């Protein structure tokens, strides 16, 4: 009986933990993110990436640092369990793979470019593009969760949805990219510093 109560409690909590936003709440979130974006010139943050493949026992966990500077400099630096850096600069992708440098790229990164521009746009606040995505707004205990479902057929072959979690200040805490197979990549940001001066030298490879 007690178990049943726990189960009921658990169910209630999990149902409560994610509810749809009203249109005024969604509107408020949009303007909050926009506001936040206007004042954010740089971001420096740790990140942990979880690659989930349904057939694996555990997610593949990699860690590193993200640096962003307006308007469009982004550097993802993986430090664990291997060193790998990818820098988006002047529409080019610079890769440093444990010392091996590469500027050439393959098509799959188009997808990452899309994610990257989504992240940049989420910072800038102009990602709420109803032409490109079906957008759904949810609230959780303390945070907001927005689902972006690409309308473009070509990208929906690779991506089913982006789920972005914002904190109360309108900052991105987590980005989850879900594939049509339900496998996903989740990136969680921690120790985020906003508007810390970042010189252009950070964005070299």
């Amino acid at each position: 009986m007690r178990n049943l109560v726990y189960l009921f409690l658990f169910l209630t909590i999990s149902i409560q933990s994610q509810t749809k936003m009203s249109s005024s709440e969604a509107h408020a979130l949009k303007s909050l993110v926009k506001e936040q974006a206007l004042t954010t010139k740089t971001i420096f943050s740790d990140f942990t990436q979880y690659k989930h493949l349904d057939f694996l026992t555990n997610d593949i966990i990699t860690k590193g640092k993200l640096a962003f500077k307006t308007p469009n400099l982004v550097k993802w630096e993986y430090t664990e369990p291997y060193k790998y850096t990818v820098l988006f600069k002047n529409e080019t992708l610079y890769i440093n793979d444990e010392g091996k440098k590469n500027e050439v790229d393959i098509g799959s990164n188009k997808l990452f470019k899309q994610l990257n521009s989504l992240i940049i746009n989420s910072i800038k606040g102009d990602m709420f593009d109803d032409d490109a995505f079906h957008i759904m707004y949810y609230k959780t205990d303390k945070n907001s969760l927005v689902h972006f479902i690409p309308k473009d057929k070509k990208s929906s072959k690779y991506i089913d949805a982006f789920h972005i979690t914002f904190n109360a200040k309108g900052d991105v805490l987590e980005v989850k990219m879900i594939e049509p197979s339900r496998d996903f990549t989740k990136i969680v940001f921690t120790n985020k510093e906003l508007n810390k001066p970042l010189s252009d030298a950070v964005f070299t490879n």
Partner: protein
Amino acid sequence: MRYLLISFCVLLVSCGSYSKKQNFQLDNSASKKFENPYFSDETKDYVYKATIDVYDNSFGGLLIIKKITDKEHRIAFTTEMGNKMFDFTFTEDEFKVNFILDELDKKMLINILKKDFKVLITENLSVSNLYSENNNRIFETLIYNKNHYYYFNRNQLTQVIKAKNGKEKVAFLFTDINNNIANKISIKHNNIKLEIKLKSIIR
């Protein structure tokens, strides 16, 4: 006429088997089966940082191998950032592409990968011949009807050579071996400029 004779001889030699060319000694003392110990533990996720050098291009990613059941393996490749590039299923006699990026969806490429990966994951193999050479016991077997030579050095699988007409076509090297995990693997093709290098990232 003499040239014809010589070229005929050359032809004969070049058609000779790989084992003869390498002066392997035939050894028929062993059983009819042997096992490849790698990728055989269902409880393990095998994750490798991969570098693929093909002609003058080089690209990297993660190669992920999982034994699902006794008869099934999954092999997926993602970029370091997590984008999936391909995802294959191998069962005993079947091969299925669950996903592949349009840019990589080329029959020739898929075929090469299929044949290479089949060697990595095939566990139970039938011996067609057994040889010995120095400290090596060499098991000859057929995979997709092609001759493969498995080198065991002190009961550890150290390399596999795929041979055709007496020539080495593909060499699989297993190094840094620990508890039936080859932490480093190299797959080198000799007829095309292709090398796949793998380094385990989960210990």
